[in-house]
């Protein structure tokens, strides 16, 4: 059910992307348009390992780290790749199209 008054992350993010960080990790970046939204996400801990794990349907242990990067007002999340880049069964060699679940974040 849609909760009232919630906003989509797409309204406040300038960049939402995914990419390999080496063949075994997938790294997700959310760069905010304005400092105040970055601060809000940071203060309210809106991005947690549990939240990422549930968005991607993976174990919390597969979320390696969540880092707040001040110079870019950005949040970086690094996940275990389901399958290493290029190993049979992989679907995205560069890991460049694995960001879509983040677009559904509401706050």
């Amino acid at each position, binding site marked *: 059910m849609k909760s009232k008054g919630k906003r989509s992350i797409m309204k406040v993010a300038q960049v939402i992307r995914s*990419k390999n960080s080496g063949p075994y990790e997938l*790294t997700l970046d959310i760069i905010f348009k304005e400092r105040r939204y970055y601060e809000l996400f940071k203060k309210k801990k809106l991005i947690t390992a549990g939240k990422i794990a549930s968005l991607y349907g993976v174990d919390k242990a597969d979320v390696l780290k969540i880092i707040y990067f001040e110079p870019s007002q950005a949040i*970086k999340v*690094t996940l275990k790749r389901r399958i290493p880049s290029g190993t049979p069964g992989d679907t*995205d060699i560069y890991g460049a199209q*694995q960001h879509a*679940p983040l677009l559904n974040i509401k706050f």
Partner: protein
Amino acid sequence: MEKRKKLPPFKILSTTAILGYGFPESSFKKGLSKKPDLIAADAGSTDPGPYYLGSGKSFTNRTAVKRDLRLMIKAGVEKNIPVIIGSAGGSGARPHLEWCLDIVRDIAREEKLHFKLGIAEADIKKETVLKALKNGQISSLPFVPPLTPAVVEESENIVAQMGIEPFIKLLEAGAQVIVAGRSYDPAVFAALPIWRGYDPGLALHLGKILECAAIAATPGSGSDCAFGTLTEDSFILEALSPERKFTPESAAAHTLYEKSDPYHLPGPGGSIDLTGCKFEDLGQGRVRVSGSRFIPSDGYWLKLEAVRLAGYRSISVAGVRDQIMIDKIDDILKAVEVRVRDILGKDSEGSQIYFHVYGKNGVMGELEPVKKTRSHELGIVIEVVAPAQAEADAVLALARSVLLHYGYEGRIATAGNLAFPFSPSDVAMGKVYEFSIYHLMEVSDPAFFPVRIEQV
């Protein structure tokens, strides 16, 4: 303390994000007019996947690489500016290095250029890795399975990302053009200034940004030059074409790219610490960066990369437009695999069968959170990976024909289930590699990589 002479600004022209991705000649000329002390480019990446390291092929095009190198080497040799290329041929193992050296020699002959060519090899012998493994000098990176002797034996083209040391060795020997195998991306930019006495933290951080050339500018481009000026306490970034500039945001955002921790960037011998780093707008599209520090690690660790053969691949591409079939697609594909394995029995045991279903979960696979398919059509790539090409071809042919004529429950389109865009429908893709080694190895001598000088 003895008062030493202040170091003059050290200027670096980075031509392109990956050698062969190209750059406008106008940007390059503008860079040259600023009298650079170094022209360099990184040529490598593991991004395109394990195939290129395993097969010994470059993921960049020969004509494109030759075009980029011709401009760089001609200008460098004529103006006496060192030219440094790292991760030759993309993956930087011996076949890739030889491929790139062949292009360099071609250019020298065609342009009648003579210079001292420095060559550094990044290949690591299996015995060296096995010995390190025995001595506890191998460490696993996150999510990478621990290395075993069996995996080392199965691996092909083991390389290590070299640091600045082999480059310095070649510069000391008088090399004017250096072509190296697999290298730590920033090393090609940082080796010469660090050798001249500049701060390694700043030099390596500058290298980290310049290795992607104008990608770190805005609008970003992998096919345009970038210019860096290193001083004793900071470095300045600027773009070389009027349509782009560096901003504190663009430079900082690039620091996030493809890395798991933007504050600590590990490399050979230590890491770049950016916790005290400042990005300052100087106007006119220029950014000053300061505060980057190099923190040496406990022991000198290099990153190893290698792949092993995973089999041979065949694929077939087809579309589905029938709603009844789309609604049952998961069950149908499962049943097709069961039927194929039933018919082939033992002959399909070594084969892996994958259905990439675009319009459903082709991009994210099991990670796809949208479970209900709303597409009116699906694209299916049938993939088989088997121990031999003939086996992959056979299993694929059967999977394709069984799926084409599979009589699923409720079927009313009885002429065929698939729309093939091509004849032939099946493609033999050849060898499939997978990463097998992606570990750190401790070495006592960071300059142990074989280097040589060739008079061209």
